[in-house]
Every structure is written in C-alpha cells, then in structure tokens.
C-alpha cells in the first residue's frame, strides 16, 4: 500500500502536463473571425452564438446584439461604431464593431483563451557553476547555487540581468525570449535550464479529390486541405478562391483556429463557363491566418482542372451472334453500335454525327452513317444501328465524330477509342479459275485450273462440276469434286482439255456449291474465260506468218523512232546501195539536160 502511494506520487510528479504546458501557454484574445450580419442573422462560434437583434441606422448607428452560450440566451447589449464599439462578455468573448451600414453590421470577434505560444529553443541543459550557454542573441551563465537557489546571469541585447531562481521558476524577458529553470539538484549542484522562444504557424496547402475532368454543367468540386505545419496555432484563417473561367460558389471561407499538425478541409466549388472545347481552368486559392500576436501568415496555390466541352459523344460497340434461323451464309456475328451525344449547354445546338465502319462492313437498314440533328439544352440523344461484316476476320472500330458550329466557328470532336479487336467468325471462299494459255491450235491441249481457298475459320463442304463447251474435249484431270475444305486451307484442281474445232470460246463460269457446318448453303462463281482456238497451219502459211510477223516487228521498230541497224547488211552492201542510189538519181536527173545538150549540139553543128 505504501509502495503504491509512493508510485502514484512519483508518477504525478513526472507526468504533470500542467506544469510543462503552463510555461508555454499564454492567456490572450484569439481572433475568431470577421462577420457581416444583418438583422436576425447569427455568427456561430465555438460554444457561443452572436445574434443581431436589431440595427438602428440613425445619426449614430447602433445595433443590439444577443449572446447565446450553447444555445442558451445569456446577454443582450448595444453597440455602436463610436465609443461603445467593443463589448466583452464574461471575460471570454470580445465583440468589436467595425461598421454599421446598409442594414449590416461588421464584427470582429475574439475569444479569450490560454494558448500555446512558447516553444523550446534550447532543450533542457545541465549547468554547473560557471557554465554558460550562448545563442544568437542571448547568453546564460550559472554563477552559483546557494541553498537550492540558482544565481543566473542572462545577457540579452547587450544588457546583463542578474537573477536568482528556484526550481520550477521561469521568466519572460521579452516577447521573444523566456528562461525556464526546470530543476535544481542540490546534491550534484546542477541546474537544468531550458530556453523558449515564440513559435510560428506555417500554412501548407494540398489538393484532394480533384477529378480528372469535369463536365461543364457540374461544379468543379474538390477539397483544399490546409495544414498547420508550424509550432503554434493559426487563427482567423480566411481562404479566398478566385477563378477567371468560372464562378466560385464561396469566394471566402473562414475557420477560427488550426492547431499545429492539424488539418482543415475546405470544399471548393466552382461553376465553370460553358465553352465548346475542353480546356484547363485555373483556380487560385490563397489562405491567410494570424498567430496569437496578429502577425499575418499566408500561402497560395493554383489548381488546374480540366473542364470538358459542352458537347459530348460516346460510342459503344457490341458484338452479337446471329440467330441460328438466320438463313444468311457467311458471318456469324453482327454488331450493335450505340452513339450517345449530349448537349450540356443552356442552348440548343445543331450537330452532325458521323461514324465510319470498317470497309468490310455494311450498315443494316440505313443509307449512311451520318446523322444531322438538333440537340436541345441539356438534352441527350442516342443513335443505335446495326452493321454486319461481309467476311470473317478481326476488326477494329474507329471513334465516331461530331461536328457543330459555335459563334461561326466549326468544332469537331471524336468519341472515345473503341478498345479491343472484334472477331467475326464465318466462312469465306475464294475461287480462282485460270487457263494455261488462251490461244491454242486445233489438236493441242491446255490445262484449266481451279483454286478454291477457304479464308474463313469454319470448315465448308464444297462441290463443283465443270461444264466443257463444244469444241473442246475432256482429256484427263479433276473436273468435278465434292468434299470438305478445312478452314484456312486451299485446294487446287487441274484438268486437261483438247481443242477439237477452231473458233472463239468462252469457258462457262464454274459454280462451286458451299455448305457450312450449320447447313447454310451458298455458292461462289468464277469468271468467264476466253479461249481462241486457231486452225492448224501449213508450212507455207507458217512462212507467211513469219514474214508478216517480221514486217509487223519492223514497222513497230520504226514507229518506236529507233535505229534499224539490220545486222545482216555489211558496209560493202551499204556502200553499194548508196552508190547505186546515187547513180540512179544522177541518171534520172541527167536525162533532160543530156537530151537538151544533144539537141542543141546537133542544131548548132
């Protein structure tokens, strides 16, 4: 029992918060905020409410204020802007009148409070006689200890102060310096001294809950978190919010006190201006506050928020399976495209929505994928259509586009990207028919080939039978087939025909019948091929043909404006040809003068 009592005493002695905090706190009037109140309006404070009962704006403006403590009426008093502009209630609440005009009274309200002011400058330090300790602007020297009393010299601002302190004494030398004698140990002749200086608040600002983007018809709303990172409380906190691109709902917000390391969340709401394009708006936040002495502290921060265009467009693509009753052969999926456009402005807008499908797609029951429309203020419209692919494969969809005009300028916006690839299952058969030659002589043979490719991802049963026209006779090869063609595979069939009679022939189209796994039927048809069968030619005809061919070839060379350097001609032959040409020309031209010469010679003989 004795031990327990002793332990309790020791604990009380060491863990007495009052003794450690009393030194650091001061009783001061703390600014609670500025209020502009009309008749019957109230200012809510911590534990108190101040209500304006009436305002009398005569030669000397007066107002009657009521004070409530925890919603219980306590006192009524009259204030004016003159001598009686300050009223203190119960030593706890002080009301200062700033002005009374236009039916409003401006008040500054203070509350009496014992508050942390001092913080440790030099922590508890052991001094023995003769020890001293210096800081920037003061010096402490322990002169001696006599009967539990420490004799200390404090040098402050070039002036010495001789003091005697007992254990637990403290002295405030100025608004910026205080000494605290924590403990004097008589046995060891030690004195534990600490010094204190006034603390300071520090404002830190953070943004919370800021969204990636905001719609123009909603508030840009986020949290501004103000933290006091200083060492003493911050008072009279006023947050001012400004925005050039919108209307701030609460330009100023107040908070009475923010203790060190405490946070206050302010809700910021800004109504952005309505614009046709998405853009960033800048919201300027500034916070100011005061310490216990009325020194101002402030901080500011710009917040950027993205506000979307007043026109929005969204596109959604859904793949759906065709019903088993659908008789159509080919693909097994179709697509439902939903486009949603919204006008969040306060006026109607004429827009044109357009969508581009992959080239293999055909929209169902619509002529074009472009829709002009008028969207009323705040209205949302949806476009829904279906599209099918003409062939199987993997496809991607492009975003839809919306175009509109605002103040004479044209604006264009695309919807969200359509993520992913859409697969269309189905069958696709490609048929190619070829001839080894389109010219042949009677009696010759040629090959006719058919290549059937299954480009889809489903197996297909195929069958065909070739028709051989008159003038040709079947020799050998595969001219008919029936069987299954596996997805992704190709098969080639070749057969040989012999030319029987000459003429021009069109080989008939080949029709390949298709049947997919679900029993749906279709067919694919090849092109018509032209074939010329010539008569057999004799050797003489062959020579004539050669000559004709050479002539044609020579003239072709002439027309090409090229040299015809016949490799057969020699220089002697060429010279002889020139010589003979010259002689011939000479003889022809000389005929007339020769006869004239002979005639004249005979006449004048």
């Amino acid at each position: 029992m004795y031990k327990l009592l002793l332990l309790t005493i020791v604990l009380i002695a060491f863990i007495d918060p009052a003794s450690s905090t009393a030194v650091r706190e001061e009783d001061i009037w703390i600014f609670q905020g500025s209020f502009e109140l009309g008749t019957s309006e109230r200012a809510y404070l911590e534990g108190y409410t101040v209500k304006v009962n009436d305002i009398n704006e005569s030669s000397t403006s007066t107002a009657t204020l009521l004070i409530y403590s925890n919603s219980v009426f306590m006192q009524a008093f009259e204030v004016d802007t003159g001598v009686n502009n300050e009223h203190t209630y119960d030593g706890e609440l002080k009301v200062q009148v700033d002005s009374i005009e236009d039916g409003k009274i401006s008040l500054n309200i203070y509350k009496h409070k014992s508050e942390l002011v001092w913080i440790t400058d030099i922590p508890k330090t052991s001094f023995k006689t003769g020890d001293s300790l210096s800081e920037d602007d003061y010096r402490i020297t322990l002169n001696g200890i006599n009967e539990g009393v420490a004799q200390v010299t404090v040098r402050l601002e070039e002036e010495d102060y001789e003091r005697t302190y007992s254990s637990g004494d403290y002295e405030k030398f100025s608004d910026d310096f205080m000494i605290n004698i924590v403990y004097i140990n008589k046995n060891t002749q030690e004195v534990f001294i600490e010094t204190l200086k006034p603390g300071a608040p520090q404002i830190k600002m953070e943004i919370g809950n800021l969204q990636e983007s905001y719609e123009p018809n909603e508030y840009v709303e986020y949290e501004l978190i103000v933290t006091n990172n200083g060492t003493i409380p911050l008072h009279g906190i006023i947050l001012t919010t400004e925005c050039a691109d919108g209307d701030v709902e609460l330009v100023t917000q107040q908070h009475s006190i923010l203790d060190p390391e405490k946070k206050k969340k302010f809700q910021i709401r800004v109504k952005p201006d309505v614009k046709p394009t998405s853009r960033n708006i800048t919201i300027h936040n500034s916070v100011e506050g005061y310490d216990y002495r009325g020194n101002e502290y402030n901080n500011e921060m710009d917040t950027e928020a993205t506000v979307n265009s007043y026109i929005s467009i969204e596109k959604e693509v859904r793949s759906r399976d065709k019903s088993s009753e659908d008789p159509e052969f080919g693909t097994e999926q179709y697509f439902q495209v939903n486009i949603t456009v919204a006008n969040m402005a306060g006026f109607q807008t004429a827009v044109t929505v357009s969508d581009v499908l992959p080239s293999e797609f055909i929209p169902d029951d619509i002529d074009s994928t472009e829709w002009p429309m008028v969207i009323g203020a705040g209205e949302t419209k949806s476009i829904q259509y279906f599209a099918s692919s003409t062939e199987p494969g993997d496809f991607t969809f492009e975003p839809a586009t919306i175009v509109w005009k605002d103040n004479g300028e044209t604006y264009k916006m695309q919807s969200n990207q359509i993520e992913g690839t859409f697969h269309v299952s189905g069958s696709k058969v490609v048929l190619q028919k070829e001839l080894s030659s389109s010219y042949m002589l009677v009696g010759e043979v040629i090959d006719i080939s058919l290549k059937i490719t299954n480009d889809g991802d489903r197996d297909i049963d195929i069958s065909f039978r070739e028709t051989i026209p008159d003038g040709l006779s079947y020799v050998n090869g595969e001219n008919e087939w029936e069987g299954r063609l596996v997805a992704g595979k190709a098969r080639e069939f070749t057969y040989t025909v012999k030319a029987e009679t000459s003429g021009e022939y069109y080989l008939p189209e080949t029709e390949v019948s298709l049947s997919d796994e679900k029993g749906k039927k279709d067919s694919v048809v090849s092109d018509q091929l032209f074939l010329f069968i010539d008569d057999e030619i004799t050797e003489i005809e062959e020579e004539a043909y050669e000559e004709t061919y050479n002539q044609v070839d020579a003239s072709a060379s002439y027309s090409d404006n090229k040299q015809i350097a016949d490799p057969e001609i020699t220089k002697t032959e060429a010279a002889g040809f020139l010589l003979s040409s010259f002689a011939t020309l000479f003889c022809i031209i000389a005929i007339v003068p020769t006869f004239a010469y002979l005639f004249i010679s005979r006449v004048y003989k």
Partner: protein
Amino acid sequence: MNIAAFIGSSMLFALFAIVVLFVLINMSSRLALIILIVVPLIFILMIPDISIAFLSVEQMSLANGLVPVNNFHILLMLWSTLIGVILYTEFLTWYLGKGMKMKKNPDGSNKTSISAGLDKIVYDAIGKAKRILNRQK
C-alpha cells in the same frame, strides 16, 4: 519524233549541202559532184555501224504512219536536189558558152534561130518519111 535527233541530223545535212554548194560555186562542179557521192561513201566504209544507224534514224512518219521518213530518205532528197543543181549549172554554163562562141563567128554567116532549126528538122523528118513511103510503094 526525237527533237534532238532531228536537229542534229538537220545540222549535218545542212553542213554537207553548204560544203557541196561552196565547192560548186568556188571550185568545180565536178569536184562538188564527187564530194556529193564520196563523203557518204567514206563514212559508210570507215564507220559502217554508226553511219548505217544514222541513216536509219526515223525523223518523222507521214500520213498517219504510212510514210516513215528516215535520214536515208533525206540524204536521197539532198542528193537529188544537189545533183540537179550541179547538172543544170553545168548545162547552162555550156549553153551560154556556146551562144557566146556563135556571136563571135568570124565568117559572118547568119545566126540561125532555134525555132528555124527546129522547123528544118521537122521538114527533113517529114521528107524522109515521104521518101521511105514512096520506095515501099
């Protein structure tokens, strides 16, 4: 038509014609005639490939391609023209020279006109024909 080939060929032919005419006027018509035949022949014999190729170049194609005109054709036309010029020059020179000689005839005999001579020949021919016919009878 290749413009460059046409211009090059034309310049060569023009140069050839100028040389021949210069020789004809200042030197000798016979020498001009020899140059006219010898120069192409020399080229043919010395550089047969290039010469034949040159002569084979088609310069134009007339009548919708029916009449192709090669450098060889142009050479023939040039030859025709220049041979004509040379021969007629020679003939006229001879004829004029003969007239001058007759004017200077020292025996003083009458000058016989060409038309009178022509009449005489015709009458002689008719007389011969009559005699031959009479003998046959």
